[in-house]
């Protein structure tokens, strides 16, 4: 790919990018969110048309008008959000869009199954062709995606953030599969913003920043620190340091909590734990094991069917979000744009959202715009929210700045307990660093923090104690200092419970 330029209204996503892939190599594309990695690959895959630049494949200039053309030329893409049809079987997903040998009828099932099993054998991708996709785990779904590409004769595989949704064990399996594919002569483009994996997986690494290539380096000739510097453009603290915790009285107590999911199935099956002042209690787990239901029940957004939530000695079970807030809970919601802010409201209005109806912001039922703006300006300064003005609609902020704004608002309420759900999801390295520093700072100041995150790395960095959630239960609580990533990983997949054959009483 030479000199690729792709503009969107208001931004240049790719500003003259050069990229090359050798046969039989794993080439990583590294960069922060918004650096243009995914755009570049969507251009290559025919989803976007480039505004300038050329694509050459095996010495021939090509241009793809649609993914169909790209597939025909031997490209295959595994998207970050899987491109699968959940109610379809594995086999149906794989033959979708393909010509059938007995058009217009669908191909005979047994012959499809046969070919799928042969492929999965050859590349070590275990799957069941007649399973419906929605019943599969995330790792299995990813294998279906890879298989789908191979079935279409892909020689070049593009994997967009393939590890973002996987458990540590699944990541290892994936890397093994990738190496096997390369051994069989395939080439792989691996998109990621995680430094460890990029170093472990790839032969060469191209770093993108602000739509431009910073450099292309051999994986063996670089290290984490150098990559981080290239990616962000300055020195980055990768792991926020922290002092030992000094926990005091319990502030949030959850007892035998039960609740149902949106589909009416049990999502929490008797969850108990407590979070003390001056500590961060992390909840680890693969997405969809009851974390979002737990978050919602504590925040007063979902009914508990049994059990208790106690915040600062007050029973807040099934109280309204307002009452829960008055009891001392601040909440950083996992769904930032749906629950965390009002996109069309100004930054100032968002910053005083919960406090707006009481003095000094409202006096005798009349809003005091000047006071609100002053408070907003103070918070914007203090929390380094980069915004043109406090009157800018919150929806215009970047993810990192939106999250800083939410953090500012929640901490300005002087909470006793902070519920931080996926606080760095989708943020880039420097914003993550900022949020992490703030959380530790608040912990040291005596706040009780419940951290819910599917990023194991984040849980390990920040938490003092770690509870592992699996299928709506806490299957183990471990002390972060003694935490073993493999053990936690096994608990996350349900293949191990605390006390199975490990030491008891880590908590």
């Amino acid at each position: 790919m030479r000199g690729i330029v792709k503009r969107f209204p208001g931004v240049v996503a790719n500003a003259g990018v050069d990229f090359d892939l050798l046969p039989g190599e794993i080439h990583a594309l590294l960069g922060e969110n918004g650096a243009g990695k995914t755009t570049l690959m969507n251009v290559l895959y025919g989803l976007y048309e480039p505004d300038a630049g050329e694509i050459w494949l095996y010495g021939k200039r090509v241009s793809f008008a649609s993914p169909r053309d790209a597939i025909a030329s031997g490209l295959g893409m595994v998207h970050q959000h899987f491109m699968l049809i959940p109610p379809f079987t594995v086999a149906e997903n794989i033959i979708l869009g393909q010509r059938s040998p007995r058009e217009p009828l669908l191909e005979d099932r047994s012959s499809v199954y046969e070919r799928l099993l042969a492929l999965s054998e050859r590349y070590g991708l275990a799957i069941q062709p007649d399973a419906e996709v929605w019943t599969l785990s995330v790792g299995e779904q990813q294998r279906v995606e890879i298989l789908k590409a191979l079935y279409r004769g892909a020689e070049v595989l593009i994997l967009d953030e393939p590890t973002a949704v996987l458990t540590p064990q699944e990541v290892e399996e994936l890397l093994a599969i990738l190496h096997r594919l390369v051994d069989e002569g395939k080439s792989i483009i691996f998109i990621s913003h995680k430094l460890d994996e990029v170093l472990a997986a790839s032969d060469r690494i191209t770093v993108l920043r602000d739509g431009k290539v910073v450099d292309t380096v051999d994986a063996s000739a670089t290290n984490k620190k150098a990559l981080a510097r290239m990616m962000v453009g300055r020195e980055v603290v990768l792991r926020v340091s922290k002092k030992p915790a000094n926990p005091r009285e319990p502030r949030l107590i959850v007892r035998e909590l039960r609740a149902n999911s949106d589909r009416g199935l049990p999502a929490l099956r008797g969850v108990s734990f407590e979070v003390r002042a001056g500590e961060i209690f992390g909840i680890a787990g693969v997405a969809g094991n009851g974390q979002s239901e737990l978050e919602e029940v504590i925040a007063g957004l979902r009914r508990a069917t049994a059990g208790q939530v106690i915040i600062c000695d007050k029973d807040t079970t099934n109280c309204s979000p307002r009452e829960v807030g008055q009891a001392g809970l601040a909440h950083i919601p996992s769904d930032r744009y749906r629950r965390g802010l009002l996109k069309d409201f100004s930054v100032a209005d968002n910053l005083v959202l919960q406090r707006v109806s009481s003095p000094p912001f409202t006096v005798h039922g009349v809003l005091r715009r000047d006071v609100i703006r002053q408070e907003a300006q103070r918070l914007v300064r203090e929390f380094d929210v980069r915004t043109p003005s406090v009157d800018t609609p919150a929806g215009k902020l970047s993810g990192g700045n939106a999250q800083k704004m939410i953090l500012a608002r929640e901490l300005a309420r002087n909470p006793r307990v902070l519920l931080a759900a996926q606080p760095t999801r989708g943020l880039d390295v420097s914003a993550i660093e900022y949020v992490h520093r703030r959380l530790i700072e608040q912990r040291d100041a005596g706040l009780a923090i419940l951290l819910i995150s599917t990023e194991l790395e984040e849980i390990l960095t920040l938490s003092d104690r770690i509870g592992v959630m699996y299928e709506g239960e806490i299957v183990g609580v471990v002390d972060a200092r003694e935490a073993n990533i493999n053990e936690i990983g096994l608990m996350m997949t349900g293949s191990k419970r605390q006390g199975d054959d490990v030491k008891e009483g880590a908590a």
Partner: protein
Amino acid sequence: MNWSLILQWSFLIALVTAGIRLAVPVVLAVLGEIITERSGVLNLGLEGVMIMGSVAGFLTAYYLENGPMASAGGEWSAWLALLAGMLSGVAMGLIMAVLSVTLRADQVISGVTLVVLGHGLAAYFYRQAFSSLTARVSGMEALPIPLLSRIPVVGEILFNHDPTVYITALMVVAVWFLLFRTTWGLRIRSVGENPAAAETSGVNVGLVRYSATLLGTALAGLGGAVLTVVQLRLFREGITAGRGWIAVALVIFARWRPGLALVGALLFGLADALQYRIQALSQVERGVGAIPYEFLLMLPYIMTILALLYRSGRADAPAALGRPYVKGAD
């Protein structure tokens, strides 16, 4: 009113036979809407499509029977009229597809627009053609199936109908086969569930949605034409009487499956047939105890609402139903 009349064999046989016949336009429309909705397009304009089918069909039949080509058209006039009904459905479908697929307009609004447009156009065309309201067409002869129609009871109920009834029965199987046994069906269903995934798999989302919308409205137009050309043999403004809306509701009852669509439409047809008969009986014995006919007219609609309630709260709808697909937007 003498209720014992209702419980006589001959009455029941006539009732079920008529119920099947009355179900035909609705079955066709539901089948069409199932195809359309399976592709992710929610066409609420079915009522407008059906009334256009009914007026196009009726006018075609009338001119073939009474116009200058009367002698040439002859026995084929009803068939050509049904074809005209289908084509007018396709024309309406094209409007829906342009609005909702190409222009990505809100599908609820596009659909409602189609209803208003259909009613207005149908009335306009009919009034242009006739000043009086007494025009009639000759319809289709019944076509008893040899041997089978002579089976007692069953033969009378199932095998002594006009050809559109048999065609509709075959259509139920054909639509099921299309959706679940052909590559095109797989594409339709994939586009209705996750168009982005379908596109990355090499499916042309726009083309599939166009074809599913047009095929769906062709069937609905055919349903409208069957109503005026074959069954009632006349046209009135608003003659479809909400059958298009009923069809939209029955799609939910049928959980987007052709087989269940047949069940739902038969329930509607039976209720419709029953209310006609009770009305007729009440006429005979006008007086105390007669049910006001307005209440009887409601019967099939109430049946439909009850059927819907029984089904409510189930999540079987295509995941992308009603959502326009924007390329590249997640």
